[in-house]
């Protein structure tokens, strides 16, 4: 295929004078080659769009698209738009609510809008479910009073404000919540109360753990990469195997290994007690320490490899020149050698940091509840609390953070320079 385009391109000048101008024929063959190249890439592009990009797009969309109340309580959602927002609504609104509750409860789907309202204001779920169970026994006259008698919260303006705010299919509620913000009664963006504010903490924690891991990786990699780059090729290749073996070993295997090593009755504690360092086992895992150690181990090769390839390409002449000009070894190292390794340091640090920010498996298995990072909460809201909109909003935050870091990385390193192994 490749050959045909090349031969047609090269043969073009030879067949001059067949009617079309040279310019036109060149343009046509240019177009044809473009098309051929595009056709080669198209299958993968479509594949990635369908299997990967569309799912992520749909997830992020879910962070702002939340039609549960509009669909679950359709009559109420519509009629409440006309409400003045100052006093308890008219009878007509209660009639609409009674009809919605009755239908939704009978069809076993009242919990869906009720749950959505509960995110805005805890307690709404039980309020709606109780009303749903009772509404069939209400008289059709004076529903407003019957609702308020059943639960005084129906007579509060705040309850209705929550329903109105959630009745639109689109909302910024979850994205704001992901940053510990919310809208006040008057619609301004304010911080949430202290016992609800957890997401910023989690975000800082995610960055902090990633920074610790990156720093640890850099500190451990630098001397090793230097040694590997300066040893004779045979020895270096042999030692390189020790770096590559963990790289190729299953993540689950490495995580298992750390649990075996660090647990209370594990090998490390056993050795420390034998040496008389401690009398009782020390907690080394299921805490922050365990997370940082295991993640450093997992990500270390991603720091060593870029550092090594940069150091390998540094010619020794500059350092020799500096030394011959009288610089002491420290100055040579710090002022001449280190600056030349900075591209590798930058690439390695960003790569490790980007990977660490999105980590899920290792912290989930070796961390405690207070060592969990953003990814864990995306999974938690997907699997346990079933708050998929919140999962989507947190995923959006994580996605944005990754994109920013990646943009820096590609500016610094370039996508095309990414190497493997």
């Amino acid at each position, binding site marked *: 295929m490749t050959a045909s385009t090349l031969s047609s391109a090269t043969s073009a000048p030879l067949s001059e004078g067949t009617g079309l101008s040279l310019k036109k024929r060149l343009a046509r063959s240019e177009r044809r080659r473009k098309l051929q190249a595009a056709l*080669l890439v198209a299958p993968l592009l479509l594949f990635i769009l369908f299997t990967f990009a569309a799912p992520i797009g749909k997830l992020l969309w879910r962070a702002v698209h939340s039609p549960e109340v509009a669909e679950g309580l359709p009559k109420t959602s519509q009629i409440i738009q006309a409400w003045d927002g100052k006093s308890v609504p008219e009878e007509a609104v209660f009639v609409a609510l009674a009809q919605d509750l009755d239908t939704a409860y009978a069809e076993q789907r009242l919990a869906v809008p009720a749950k959505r309202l509960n995110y805005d204001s805890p307690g709404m779920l039980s309020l709606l479910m109780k009303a749903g169970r009772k509404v069939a026994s209400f008289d059709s006259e004076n529903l407003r009073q019957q609702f308020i008698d059943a639960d005084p919260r129906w007579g509060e303006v705040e309850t209705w404000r929550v329903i109105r705010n959630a009745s639109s299919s689109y909302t910024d509620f979850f994205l704001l919540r992901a940053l510990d913000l919310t809208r006040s009664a008057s619609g301004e963006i304010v911080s949430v109360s202290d016992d609800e504010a957890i997401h910023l903490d989690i975000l800082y924690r995610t960055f902090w753990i990633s920074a610790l891991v990156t720093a640890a990786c850099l500190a451990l990699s630098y001397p090793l990469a230097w040694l590997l780059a300066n040893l004779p090729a045979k020895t270096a290749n042999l030692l390189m195997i020790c770096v590559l073996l963990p790289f190729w070993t299953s993540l689950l295997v490495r995580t298992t290994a750390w649990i075996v090593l660090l647990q209370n009755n594990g090998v490390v504690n056993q050795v420390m007690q034998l040496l008389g360092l401690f009398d009782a086992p020390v907690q080394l895992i299921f805490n922050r320490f365990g997370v940082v150690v295991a993640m450093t181990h997992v990500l270390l090769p991603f720091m060593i490899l870029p550092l090594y390839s940069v150091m390998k390409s540094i010619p020794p002449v500059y350092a020799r020149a500096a030394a011959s000009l009288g610089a002491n070894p420290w100055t040579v190292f710090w002022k001449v050698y280190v600056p030349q390794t900075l591209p590798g340091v930058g690439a390695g640090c960003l790569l490790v940091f980007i990977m660490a920010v999105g980590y899920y498996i290792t912290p989930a298995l070796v961390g405690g509840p207070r060592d969990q990072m953003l990814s864990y909460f995306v999974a938690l809201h997907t699997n346990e609390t079933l708050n998929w909109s919140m999962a989507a909003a947190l995923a959006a935050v994580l996605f944005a953070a990754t994109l920013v870091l990646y943009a820096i990385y590609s500016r610094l390193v370039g996508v095309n320079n990414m190497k493997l192994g």
Partner: protein
Amino acid sequence: MALPDYAGMPEKTVYYGVRVLSGLVLLFLIAPILVIVPLSFNAEAFFTYPMPGLSLRWYLDFFGSAEWQRALYNSLFFGIATTLLSMFLGTLAALGLARPEFPWRGPVMALIISPMIVPLIIAAVGMFLFYADWGLVNTRLGMVLAHTALATPFVVITVTATLTGFDARLLRAAASLGANPVTTFRRVTLPMILPGMVSGGIFAFVTSFDEVVVALFLAGSEQRTLPRQMWSGIREQLSPTILAAATLLVLFSIAMLVTVEMLRRRSERLRGISQ
């Protein structure tokens, strides 16, 4: 890199310091993996040394349990299917991307390698919600599609790497000597990119074989893979059977490592890049 005779105290300290430090880092890298290997032969369900006796019971457990066997079979199935599909898609795309006239290379490349960058949890949750609309959750097809999306970037990158420095004149030479396009591809292009395809394929296989986050969301009990099985094992009760499985996986990764290294050297030789 031997230490010169005139080296003084500071040089000696640095010289040995770097070596000791590097040795410790290498130990840190390799020891955890090696420590679990002997423990998998422990006669008792303990994770400490000295071991009371040796036995193969955990391996018998691994090979005798229907659950672990199903997981092993599934992992191999997904790994091979993913490898074939991603080698096909990835090689085609790499050939297209390597052409100088390919339009919008930047954005297309960014999209194609995005599965390597986007945090897995985002991909997994998105796939869980999206694939379900197509009835792909808890199916083999869904797992293969997801793993292929994650694995193909590796093939694209490795094949692209073998094409850099590829001398396009070779193709013209072949054509001028009368070879048709198919023959040119088979006799000239393919031998050049084959090492890249194979090492990309190995990366693809390992990506699928080692993947657990997507499996947590997309795989039902019938599609459970080895890492998924290990995940629930670790969360519920760490049994030595997991160590037996882990040891087998370590052996497997050594084999992968050796193969990829050999391929890399062969490819460098072919392209005339000397060490």
